[in-house]
């Protein structure tokens, strides 16, 4: 009992009396721990955060109708049940119909325009996205053909099918009944792809234009998941008895895989090297602080202290310093990771509680190890020599 009391007294006394030195040691440990917890948090968070950035490349999964049918909203919704809701960034179904604009054939797509903004964030729209019925988004090529500007109006004509269900043939062109609808152009978009030859309107307007509710031809999905997870979702959907088949957009998934793995490897290596060097820095500072106390070790040995008790005391100090420094560092590190996340990705991260004991453990280990080396060398020396000052 008495021995324990003495032990505690010696540790606290040395911490309090040698305040400035201990502050130096604590600071060193806290800095090391901050870097450790900050970088590890970032390392774990980067794939998720970057994965979201990669969704800029647009849809990475598509649903197509099975054999010659059409997709219904119910089928799509059922397919979506196989994918965790939080992972779905957007799902835009498209219904393509041919229309004529001033006697020229064009493709019009009826879709959910707010979802398109999510699945194809790279569309560069001059003007605004349509928000109410009767508004239309026009591809750059179509717009330049008819010299359209945002705010202009344009008329789409849809050939009503003849009773036998086939579109009118060429020689009856004159008599083909058409349904005309006038739309207000809200925006003109360019993508650098085929979409520039199309016009986009809402599903409701498409139904009004064609006079019938038709199914969708394709649905584009943007899902934030790794390519293995995506393949899993696609297989799960295909194995269900829904009349649709899902497949991955290889160009997007494959390339994302390549780039993301490089990025992760980069952050991993950087983290490893920074940690290694920081730990060595912490160790040398601790060594300097402890080496200073060789005289104290010698004195205590001369008074009859055993090697074990001396090592125990230094370890106790190291434990305390490492624990406090680690605790301090794990919170500072989280603050740093949070700052990075907010500044770089505009989103916050969750606090990993497991990192607190981990950081503390590593700091205790590093401090303990770096204390032991100089103490051991002090113990090995004859106390008389140390005290004499050689």
């Amino acid at each position, binding site marked *: 009992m008495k021995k324990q009391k003495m032990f505690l007294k010696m540790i606290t006394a040395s911490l309090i009396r040698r305040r*400035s*030195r201990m502050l*130096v040691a604590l*600071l*060193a440990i806290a*800095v*090391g721990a*901050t870097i450790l917890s*900050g*970088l590890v948090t970032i390392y774990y968070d980067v794939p998720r955060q*970057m994965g979201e*950035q*990669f969704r*800029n*490349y*647009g849809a990475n999964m598509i649903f197509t109708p099975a054999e010659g049918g059409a997709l219904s909203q119910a089928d799509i919704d059922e397919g979506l049940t196989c994918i965790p809701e939080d992972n779905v960034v957007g799902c835009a179904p498209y219904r393509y119909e041919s229309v004529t604009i001033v006697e020229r054939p064009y493709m019009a797509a009826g879709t959910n325009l707010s979802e398109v903004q999510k699945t194809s964030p*790279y*569309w*560069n729209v001059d003007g605004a996205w349509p928000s109410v019925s009767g508004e239309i988004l026009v591809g750059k*090529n179509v717009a*330049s*053909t008819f*010299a359209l500007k945002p705010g202009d109006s344009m008329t789409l004509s849809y050939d009503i099918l003849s009773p036998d269900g086939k579109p009118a043939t060429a020689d009856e062109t004159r008599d083909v009944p058409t349904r005309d609808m006038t739309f207000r152009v809200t925006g003109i978009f360019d*993508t*650098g*792809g085929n979409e520039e030859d199309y016009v986009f309107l809402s599903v409701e307007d498409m139904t009004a234009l064609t006079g019938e509710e038709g199914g969708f031809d394709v649905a584009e999905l943007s899902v934030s998941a790794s390519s293995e997870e995506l393949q899993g979702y696609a297989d799960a959907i295909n194995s269900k008895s829904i009349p649709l088949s899902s*497949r991955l957009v*290889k*160009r*997007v*998934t*494959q*390339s994302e895989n390549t*780039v993301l793995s*490089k*990025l992760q*490897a*980069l*952050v991993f*290596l*950087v983290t490893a*090297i*920074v940690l290694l*060097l*920081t730990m*060595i*820095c*912490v160790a*040398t*500072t601790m*060594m*300097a*602080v402890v*080496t*200073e106390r060789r005289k104290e070790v010698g004195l205590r040995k001369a008074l009859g202290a055993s090697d074990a008790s001396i090592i125990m005391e230094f370890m106790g100090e190291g434990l305390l310093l490492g624990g406090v420094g680690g605790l301090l560092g794990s919170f500072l590190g989280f603050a*740093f990771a949070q700052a*990075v996340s907010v*500044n*770089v*990705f505009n989103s916050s991260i969750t606090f990993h509680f497991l990192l607190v004991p981990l950081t503390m453990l590593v700091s205790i280990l590093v401090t303990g190890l770096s204390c032991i080396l100089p103490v051991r060398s002090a113990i090995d020396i004859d106390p008389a020599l140390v005290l004499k000052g050689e």
Partner: protein
Amino acid sequence: MFFRMLKGALFRQKSKMIMIAVTIALGASLATAMLNIMFDVGDKMNQELKTYGANITVVPKTSSVLNGLYEMDEAEETTASLKEEELGKIKTIFWAFNIVDFAPFVNTTASLNGAQVKLVGTWYNHHLALPTGEELDAGVTSLRSWWDIRDGKWIDEQNTDSDRVAMVGAALADRLGVKAGDTVTLQTANGSEALTVSGIFDAGGDEDEQIYTTLAAAQRLSGKQGQLDSIEVSALTTPDNELAVKAAKEGPASLTPREYETWYCTAYVSSICYQIQEVISDSVAAPVRQVADSEGNIMEKTELLMILITILSLLGSALGISNLVTASVMERSNEIGLMKAVGARDRQVTGLVLTEILITAIFGGAVGYFMGYGFAQIIGHTVFNSSIEMKPMVIPIVAVLIVIVTLIGSIPAIRMMQRLRPAEVLHGR
């Protein structure tokens, strides 16, 4: 006397000075490695992002534009096309060095066993020897890196004499029962060609229903000798800023001469497009938004991320160094007390200690720079399979950083030294 004491301190307290030098070297190596990686990560990621394929497409000025301009109201489609002989000029533009790959395309439809299929002629690994002396293998082998070759292999233009080879899309091949090594006979109004199937590819897109062949074979079949339908260009670009957006929106003509010069001489995707249009007659070069925009976005994020990690590690190594310097000066209070007791002035003691530490710092910093070089190369080779370019500007940054950090680290120690009362220290309290 000053120098003798300096020499004495440096050599007699060897182990202590080595420890300081080691810590400074570690800090310096960390700073060097991180700064170099930070400056180079943009270029490296840019290269990696090339797996997404071309970011610029070049097409002929469409007939509709011509019709609109000159009121030529005749045929539906005037077959505008690009000229094959002008292809090489792409590598002569101002930013030629940033053009990493490109491929021309000719599209046509042909009948195969009575069914209509889409045929695409292009380059695969076409060898280009440029007038500048540069050599380049251009083509879709790298522009379509995500294609999965299921059976057989990519068309190898450099090792096959015949241009009568083809690759068939997986979906089409399944329907027709075609395997690598088979021969498919394609027929158009311009004749027929028997093509040997080199491989079956799975592209996960519309291409799975198409046949890809060499440029020459497709030109013969479509009757478009010497003509091209489109060109895809993969270029390293700088993320857009306000100037680039303004140029893209209002046209280069809206820029002031000074702005124009800056814009033209920066590798924005819009300025590269503009330069391509200058060399390829009657062409429109447009960025592929899906690739070009996302690229800029991801690069920006990666660079910002690396900058923040670099700042953290710089702060860490700075604190580490100044900490050690403080600790090591503190432990010499005895010696300093003695110096003061025999009549040294504060300024002299400070000067001596600072010189000692700075000499150690310069030595450690130099070693650290080369260590950092090593670390940067390890990272470069492991992650990107290429070495990290060492920017000369890193050297002064690291040097200034080390000096400032050691000086700041010495401040608490110097203040302590000046407050030190020799009698107290020597007495041993």
